[in-house]
Every structure is written in structure tokens, then in C-alpha cells.
């Protein structure tokens, strides 16, 4: 085998790669965990495709069929749902750890940018997948979510019609979201992921800024087998956690979507959109001459662009100097997200 594929070269290459060892090394694992959860999503997603039917008159029933008739269907769907949630949580942690470590600084700007778009796509995966069971909660969440895009100046209305496949959320929206979720998004995601991983491979792991200031020589650990085996162990642990969650808290289905039923009381989006949902609640109907929701959407859009461009405006970190303002900003963002999520959850 080795004479045909030269596997020893690959092992040699991997064992020459080193991972820095320091007090913040734990954050290095979340990129790998996110990757593992994405793989799990792809595998369980493909399995669900064997039974799922993407049309408004069959979607709910097909999910019901998966949950009640297909052997271990409940397990596969529950693993898909739980690993989706943990995937987004892991991506959040990965992104914020990169932010606090300022690992986006020169020369890793493109790794940050591809990572940012992978994060946005992860949210888009969540949003599009949420509609697929065609239940009541998903129906209204999609109505609200797509209506918010209509608030974007100039392109909002055409974008809303494009997403919905018409003026309203109907079976046409489900078909589109199904296409986005299982074909378009995975295609773009894999492309960006390859770029992201390629950049990480080429540039190696980022070291803490403090170490480079102190010109400290950090201890290292070979990527293969030391770090790789630790990664695998953690993936196994994550898989076990998901299995426990899926068995004890299987994914729910709720009521079938009915366009003539009122939105149910206590309706909330998925937890990762809750902070935005809660913020929009505080916006009054009008702020000066613009509608409250337009102002809210613009505010989040500006925040998103600033977040994306942080490697370019945080020039201090790129010069290898400490920038405490970034830490304060990160702490503010984390607190904002956590507090508003909790308020949204309990109210």
C-alpha cells in the first residue's frame, strides 16, 4: 500500500506539523469539533434524505413517518437536530476564541473572512433546515425571518420574493429552502471550508499575541499523532453527548403548519437567533423617519460588516501590539448575546 500511495510521506508531513502548547490551547479544539459536527450533519442529513419529501403536503407527514415508522428514524433525526444546535454553538465558541486571541491578525485575514462566511452559512443552514418539517413554529419563524430581509433597503423586497418563491411563505418556499439546505449551502460551505483549512495548513496555528510580544518560545506538540488523537478523543466524547441528548430529548415535531391558524403564543425562534429577535422587540415602531425593524436590521448589518472587517481596522493587533479595546468589544458582544438570549428565553 505504502509503495503505491506513499502514505509514509503524509505521516511524515503531518508529524512535522506542530501545535503550540500554552494556557489557551484548549480553544484550538473547537475548530475540529465544528468540523466533526459538520461531518455528522452531512451523514445524518443524507440518511434523512432517503425518506424526507420536500413538498408542503408531504413534508410534515414524511417527518412523522421517519419519527414513528422508520427503524431508528427518531434517532437519526434527533442526532441531526442536536448536532445542528451543537454545531452552531461550537462555531460560536470557535469564532469568539479566534476573536479574543486576535488570531485574525496579519497574516490570517483570509482565514477569518472565510470563517466569517462559514459562520453565516451555518446560521443559514439552521434557518433553512428549521422549515423543512413544515410545522407551525417553523412556518411562522420563516415568515418573520424572510419578512425581515424585506426591510433591507433597495434589494430587500426582491430578496424576500426570491427566498419565498413568491409573495408569501408557501410550498414554493419549502421547495426553495430544501434546495438551499441540501444542495446550494453544502456546496458553498465545502468550498469555503477547503479554503479555510488550506489557509490553516499553510500558516499553521496562530500563537497568542502575548507570547510574540515577550518573544517567548512556546512549547509545541506534534499534530500527528499527539494532537490528532486528542482531537479524536474529544470527537468521541461529543458523539456520546449527542447520543445521550438524542435518546433522552428526541427532536419534537409539533403541529403541522396551517396558513390560516394564528401564530401560537410563546413563539420563539431557535436559540441562536433569539438575541436578534429580542433586540428587535425593543425597537419602537418608528425611529425618526424609518421603521423600527429597518433600523434594527441596519444596525445588525453594520455590526456584521464591522465584525467581518476586524482584521483591517484592528491595526494594533496586526502590528503585534496588545489591543484591550478589542477585548472590551468582544466581552460586550458576548454579554449582549448571552443576556438577550436569556431574556428572550424566559419572557
Amino acid at each position: 500500500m505504502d509503495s503505491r500511495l506513499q502514505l509514509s510521506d503524509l505521516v511524515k508531513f503531518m508529524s512535522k506539523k506542530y501545535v503550540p502548547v500554552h494556557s489557551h490551547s484548549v480553544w484550538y479544539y473547537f475548530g475540529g469539533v465544528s468540523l466533526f459536527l459538520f461531518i455528522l450533519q452531512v451523514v445524518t442529513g443524507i440518511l434523512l434524505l432517503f425518506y424526507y419529501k420536500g413538498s408542503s403536503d408531504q413534508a410534515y407527514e414524511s417527518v412523522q413517518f421517519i419519527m414513528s415508522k422508520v427503524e431508528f428514524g427518531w434517532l437519526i433525526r434527533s442526532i441531526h437536530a442536536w448536532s445542528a444546535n451543537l454545531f452552531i454553538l461550537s462555531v460560536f465558541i470557535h469564532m469568539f476564541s479566534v476573536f479574543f486571541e486576535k488570531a485574525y491578525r496579519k497574516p490570517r485575514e483570509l482565514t477569518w473572512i472565510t470563517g466569517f462566511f462559514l459562520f453565516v452559512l451555518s446560521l443559514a443552514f439552521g434557518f433553512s433546515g428549521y422549515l423543512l418539517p413544515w410545522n407551525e413554529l417553523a412556518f411562522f419563524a420563516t415568515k418573520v425571518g424572510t419578512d425581515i430581509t424585506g426591510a433591507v433597503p433597495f434589494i430587500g423586497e426582491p430578496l424576500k420574493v426570491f427566498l419565498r418563491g413568491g409573495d408569501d411563505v408557501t410550498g414554493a418556499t419549502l421547495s426553495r429552502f430544501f434546495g438551499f439546505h441540501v444542495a446550494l449551502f453544502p456546496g458553498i460551505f465545502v468550498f469555503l471550508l477547503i479554503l479555510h483549512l488550506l489557509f490553516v495548513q499553510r500558516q499553521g496555528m496562530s500563537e497568542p499575541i502575548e507570547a510574540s510580544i515577550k518573544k517567548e518560545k512556546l512549547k509545541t506538540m506534534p499534530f500527528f499523532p499527539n494532537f490528532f488523537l486528542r482531537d479524536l478523543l474529544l470527537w468521541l466524547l461529543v458523539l456520546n453527548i449527542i447520543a445521550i441528548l438524542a435518546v433522552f430529548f428526541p427532536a419534537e415535531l409539533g403541529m403541522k403548519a396551517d396558513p390560516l391558524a394564528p401564530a401560537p403564543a410563546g413563539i420563539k425562534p431557535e436559540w441562536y437567533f433569539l438575541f436578534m429577535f429580542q433586540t428587535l422587540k425593543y425597537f419602537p415602531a418608528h425611529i425618526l423617519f424609518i421603521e423600527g425593524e429597518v433600523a434594527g436590521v441596519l444596525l445588525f448589518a453594520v455590526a456584521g460588516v464591522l465584525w467581518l472587517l476586524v482584521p483591517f481596522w484592528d491595526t494594533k493587533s496586526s502590528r503585534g501590539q496588545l489591543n484591550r479595546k478589542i477585548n472590551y468589544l468582544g466581552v460586550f458582544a458576548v454579554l449582549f448575546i448571552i443576556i438577550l438570549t436569556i431574556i428572550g428565553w424566559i419572557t
Partner: protein
Amino acid sequence: MISNESDGKIIKKENRRDFLKYLLTTGLAGFALATIYPVISFLKPPKQREVKVSSVSAGLAKDFNTGDYKIIRFGKVPVIVIKDEEKDFRAFSATCTHLDCTVQYKKDEKIIWCACHNGKYDLHGRNISGPPPRPLDKFMVVLKDEEILVTKSS
């Protein structure tokens, strides 16, 4: 003389190169346009012919108790029909003017309520609390031999 001749050749060559560049760029732009335009057009959902509706029945008046409400389809629009405390029927668009959720009638508070963002409207459809920026569109209700007929408000 020789240099002039070679200069002429260079100019000629450059002209030819510019022309080829222009041809290639225009060709590529045309090709891109010819590929992208059908894709964008394909993604734009075709306009479906709407059936013009002038009035829709919401059922019989005797089936409504005071404070009851029903959501019916008026063409493509959901409409909420309410029997208020004065036993009058009222009808409004059931789509919240904030973010498109479907509203419901809260009998105890005598308000029309949107569960998505806690938007509230009074029994005239006016937005009284929460994020809705506009009142609900009004519909007319006519009783014809016990049957509740909802028509577009003029």
C-alpha cells in the same frame, strides 16, 4: 527609415493586440451575461394569476359566540373575523403589519394580538402597542340572511 518601419509594425501589432483583447473581453462579457441572465430569470418566481375576490363567506352568524373569531382566506390574504362584545362583526387583514405573522383575537383583553413580537391592535385595527408600524387593513362585514359576508373596504 528602418526604425519608422519597425515603429509602424509595433503600432500595427499593438492595434491588433488591443482589438483581440477587446474582442475577447466583449465575448467573455457576452458569454457571462448569456449564462447569468437565464439563471436569474429562472430564480424569479413567475407571477401567478390571482383570482379576483370581491366577497367571501365567513360562515353563519349563529355559529359565532360573543368574543369568537375565525380566520378565513380572502383571495391570497388571511382575514380575521371577530364578533365583539356589542355583538357586531368586524374584519381585518390577519397579517401583522410588523413582520407578517398571523394575529389572533384576545377575548379577555378585547385586543387583536400578534404572538410573534407582542404587537397589539384595538378593535378598530389601530396599532396600540408593540412594534407594529401601521394599523391592520379593514374589511367590510355584511350580514345576508344570517350569512357573514366579508368584502373589501372601499
